């Protein structure tokens, strides 16, 4: 019977070794004690002696190859014996798993039950809702498998042992050291690692938490946080975002704001803010640049005739972007009123969920001016193609004409756009349009 030759493990911290020299060729006759090959770690060099006799049937690695420890390097047996069962894909890890099972249970590997097709639902659920047997949970910890990523095939979708075993099998193999670390520290082993053949190494695990120590707190994400996380991540992953910055002379803006404040204090009505004025200007710009007022649908664009303006609102529960529909129909006063109304209902938590869908808006504005932010790169709410970030107002020296320089208030504008939908030039033209609208706002307070 053919015997595998395994890359020995020279110490707990060694994950792989490099074959420096083969002393035997395939087909050579091997006696017990013959030096098969020499190999080295980063610290020392070793020789591997044959532990069985026969013909060297197969070498799986060449000189210079880095071989994960405990992997099968070669096979010794009788001439003509098949080596397929050892081969191609190194099976060292699998072999070890079986060994471990034997140790724990004193039994052969059990049969894995075929999973009915209709039940192979990869349904990530939130951690609190996961149904999992104690045994599967224990196995998951042992193998470092994140149970949030796998579906259960037990009764009522419960994750049972076989699901963990299967997940462990499907995943890239990991080095014994990595497994040890995962077991001790209760870390998840990622599906793919940075080692040889995507092996998960100790580095992959140690990098999970660069700052070691116990002075941390694990806080579960709220559903809201999870949604925001998913949306933001999706946006950055799935589009080609970049940001242009400019600034607009804010003297008109501030004058209008001053008037509005006076009026409001004197006779009530709407307290029109700088943000309302900026939004008004943006709407006007969008009417002139419909290519920024659209949705990117992969193979097409949906261009809107109306402006449905999304406004980023900070609430206790997190960021929300409610929409004011048909904003282009509104006077400055009505716009101010509606923006305030949706923002308030977001804060109170009674906003109509339909108004929060990113598909409901055609363009969004995010204003961080109040926080003194001078420049930022807002993230687009897909499938919208652009978002305007509004920054704080800064007095800047400006040529007032006639060689006279003076300080003029400028408001910063950061336009993030999806390069898949818009090119740099039209985006810049649109941003310039916004600037002009702000500087030349034509409203009556």
């Amino acid at each position: 019977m053919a015997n595998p030759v395994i890359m020995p493990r020279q110490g707990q911290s060694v994950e792989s070794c490099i074959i420096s020299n083969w002393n035997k060729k395939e087909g050579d006759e091997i006696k017990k004690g013959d030096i098969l090959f020499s190999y080295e770690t980063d610290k020392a060099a070793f020789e591997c002696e044959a532990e069985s006799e026969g013909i060297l049937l197969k070498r799986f690695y060449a000189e210079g190859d880095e071989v994960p420890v405990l992997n099968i390097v070669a096979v010794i047996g009788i001439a003509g014996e098949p080596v397929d069962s050892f081969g191609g894909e190194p099976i060292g890890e699998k072999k070890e798993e079986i060994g471990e099972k034997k140790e724990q249970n004193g039994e052969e590997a059990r049969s894995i039950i075929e999973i009915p097709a209709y039940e192979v639902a990869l349904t990530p659920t939130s951690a609190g809702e996961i149904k999992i047997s104690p045994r599967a949970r224990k196995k998951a910890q042992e193998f470092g498998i994140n149970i949030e990523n796998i579906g259960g095939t037990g009764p009522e979708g419960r994750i049972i042992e076989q699901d963990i075993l299967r997940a462990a099998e499907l995943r890239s193999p990991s080095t014994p050291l990595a497994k040890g670390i995962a077991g001790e520290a209760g870390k998840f082993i990622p599906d793919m690692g940075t080692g040889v053949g995507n092996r998960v190494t100790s580095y992959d695990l140690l990098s999970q938490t660069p700052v070691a120590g116990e002075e941390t707190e694990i806080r579960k994400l709220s559903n809201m946080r999870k949604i925001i996380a998913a949306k933001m991540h999706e946006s950055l992953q799935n589009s080609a975002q970049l940001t242009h910055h400019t600034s607009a002379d804010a003297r008109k803006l501030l004058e209008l704001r001053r008037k509005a404040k006076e009026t409001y204090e004197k006779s009530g009505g709407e307290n029109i803010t700088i943000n309302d004025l900026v939004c008004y200007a943006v709407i006007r710009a969008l009417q002139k640049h419909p290519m920024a007022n659209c949705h990117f649908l992969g193979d097409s664009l949906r261009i809107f005739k109306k402006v449905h303006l999304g406004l980023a609102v900070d609430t206790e529960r997190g960021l929300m972007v409610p929409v004011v529909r048909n904003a282009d129909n509104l006077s400055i006063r009505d716009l101010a009123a509606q923006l305030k109304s949706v923002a308030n209902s977001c804060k109170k938590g009674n906003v109509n969920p339909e108004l929060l869908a990113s598909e409901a808006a055609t363009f969004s504005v995010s204003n961080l001016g109040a926080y003194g932010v001078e420049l930022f790169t807002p993230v687009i709410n897909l499938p919208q193609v652009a978002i305007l970030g509004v920054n704080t107002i800064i007095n800047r020296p400006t040529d007032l004409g006639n060689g006279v320089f003076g300080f003029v208030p400028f408001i910063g504008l950061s336009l993030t756009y999806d390069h898949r939908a818009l090119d740099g030039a039209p985006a810049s033209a649109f941003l310039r349009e916004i600037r002009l609208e702000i500087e030349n706002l034509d409203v009556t307070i």
Partner: protein
Amino acid sequence: MPKIQNIDPAKVRKPSQITFGKIPVNQYNKNIEQEKELFTTDDFIRIYRDMVIIREFEVMLNKIKTTNEYFGIKYNHPGPAHLSIGQEASAVGMAYNLNISDYIFGSHRSHGEILAKGLSAIHQLDENGLMNIMKNFFGGSTLKVVENGHQGNIKELGVKFLLYGTLAEIFARENGFNKGLGGSMHAFFTPFGVYPNNAIVGGSGDISVGAALYKKVNRKSGIIVCNIGDASMGCGPVWEGISFASMDQFRTLWQGEFKGGLPILFNFMNNQYGMGGQTCGETMGYDILARIGAGVNPEMMHAERVDGYNPLAVIDAFKRKKQILEDRKGPALLDTLTYRISGHSPSDSSSYRSKEEIEAWEKADCIVSYGNHLVNFGIATRDQLDAIVAGTIAEMKQTLTLTIDEKTSPLLNLVKDPEAISDMMFSNQSVDRMEEGICEVLTPMEENPRVKQIKTKERFYLGKDGKAVSKLKQYQLRDGIFEAIIDRFYKDPTLVAYGEENRDWGGAFAVYKGLTEALPYNRLFNSPISEGAIVGTAVGYGMCGGRALVEIMYCDFLGRCGDEVFNQLPKWQSMSGNVIKMPVVVRVSVGSKYGAQHSQDWSALVAHIPGLKVVFPATPYDAKGLMNSALQGTDPVIFFESQRIYDIGEMFHEGGVPEGYYEIPIGEPDVKREGNDLTILTIGSTLYTAIKAADLLKEKYNLSAEIIDARSLSPFNYEPVIASVKKTGKILLTSDASTRGSFLKEMAQTITELAFDYLDAPPVVVGSRNWIVPAYEMENSFFPQPDWLLDAIHERIIPLKGHTVTSNITPNEQIRRNKYGV
């Protein structure tokens, strides 16, 4: 009915009449002058002293209970004290003529009897004998306390020992006669012939009959006195005990030296009240209790009423009754009329009786009137009597002081030795025979027809040709039980077996076929249909030192011996402080095909009770090995058998059932089939249902099931089961018991606790429905079927690809069934 006694229709159909003889009522009419011929002055005075000791002992208890003080000595006793103040003449009269080899059994109100019998024994024993008893009891620890500073003779020391041992027992002290584990209502001291007193009214009614059986079968001298109250006449076990004791066969069928009535006297300490119910006049209808004897047998049980307020009358009556028993004409019945002046217990406000009544009986007080007689007839002076009272009070003060001293008389220390009681629950001994002697048998074992027949049988279910052997040629489960039993009959001369249809018929399920040919009546006999007495007498037989094997024909009849199985059999070893053993095996056959009252598996009921060992073998190999262990041990074992599989062959033990003797340890489950994917734990005959299910699992779903046969319910070693669950992660438990509260639920819960992290699904129990057992034709809807097991696995443990369920075991259905209690 044995074939040698034919029932002749001409004879039994003939007209005639039953005539009753006369039953004496208070016929004693001697005066002291006449009694002087029988009693010396010392005897007369000793009778007085004994009554005074009993009285003062209970007066002391009464004061402690009601005022927490006796002559300035303070103590609080939270436990019971059922006093018999007023009944002293009855107790002393009862014990006066009894030898040490005569045993008394009692009730919850037996302090007086213990002391009376103890004082009588001390009087009869020579000093060496008495000293030996005291020295050897619990290594002399009880004696040491009273010996310290004792001045006086050994008999006086004996009295101190008796008072201290009894009081220490009542106050739950380790120096008590039963290590404080019996207490007031159960205290006893076998070296003086005082056997268990019983807190269950009438509890001694059948146990004492078993003691009489022990005396008779094992040729022991002495009689048994069953001291029970008048109200116990309303209890079934008392009637059953009386029926058992008066069986005709003792005189008609038992042979030679065993011929003749049982040496038992039912002595009703008739204080005329059962707690607060007036027996004559309210709760019973016998008018005079002694009348009962007339209905029992032609001898009318030699029944008689005696005036229990006159010690000399009681002595006289007991002397005569004892003679009757020694002449083998028992059983006898005495109605010892007395009166309890004290309440039933200290909380008794005597609302059920008038002040006038109590005062009238106080006027007739047995001690005062007897003392007056002694003075009037010049036997003692008033001063002498007063000195006895004063001396007794001093003795009592000393006893009380010693008993309540925490250093001298500590309680069993359960802090220092937390398992002290655990260690007394079972005696766990391995004993070939309970006593040396010749085993009385009718033929050599090898000549027994059944033994010969079994020799021709195939001891494995497959023949040498690998084919299944026919039922007739197969060594069956019933053969395994038989082999173990007949073996023991030839080893242990004390072994007796009885129950319904045990003789001639060969047991209702042919387990005993062939035993009748092997054994005389005094070792194997038919009992009346009295399950209470069947088990109760076995308890009495076992506690006296014999080994008994009794049978409850159907598990459903366990209810008929509820008290005997739940309160008596399991408890006496530990309640005695390990003084007595209980080598009793109760065979219980679980039925099938016979509907709702003949097919239930009630193993959970007995497994719940601490102090019983419970086994349920399902293969011939296990049945023989477990019966051998049960009969080798000294503990009570409930041995379940299933009528479904009496004829099953041995399918698991390689090489078949060994011919020789071997034991299977009680409490060890057995892996009947190895597997990797799922564990199935079975109790009883569902082993075979599980085998079928396992075959289906392998065939259809490629799952390998490991099958473990529990074999025992209690004790039970969970280790092999946990090891299996650690391997498979999944376990299903199944038995024929109705699911709700079945023992499997206990097991499932324990497994969950012990193997939680290894479980891949909750342990699932598949038992029978919570219904009456329907007719045989509908049993498949009631008892677990292989399909049900698969359904449960599919729905609760691991979905089986393509499996279609046939039973409804969804969570909603489970909730619904529980909601409706079905």
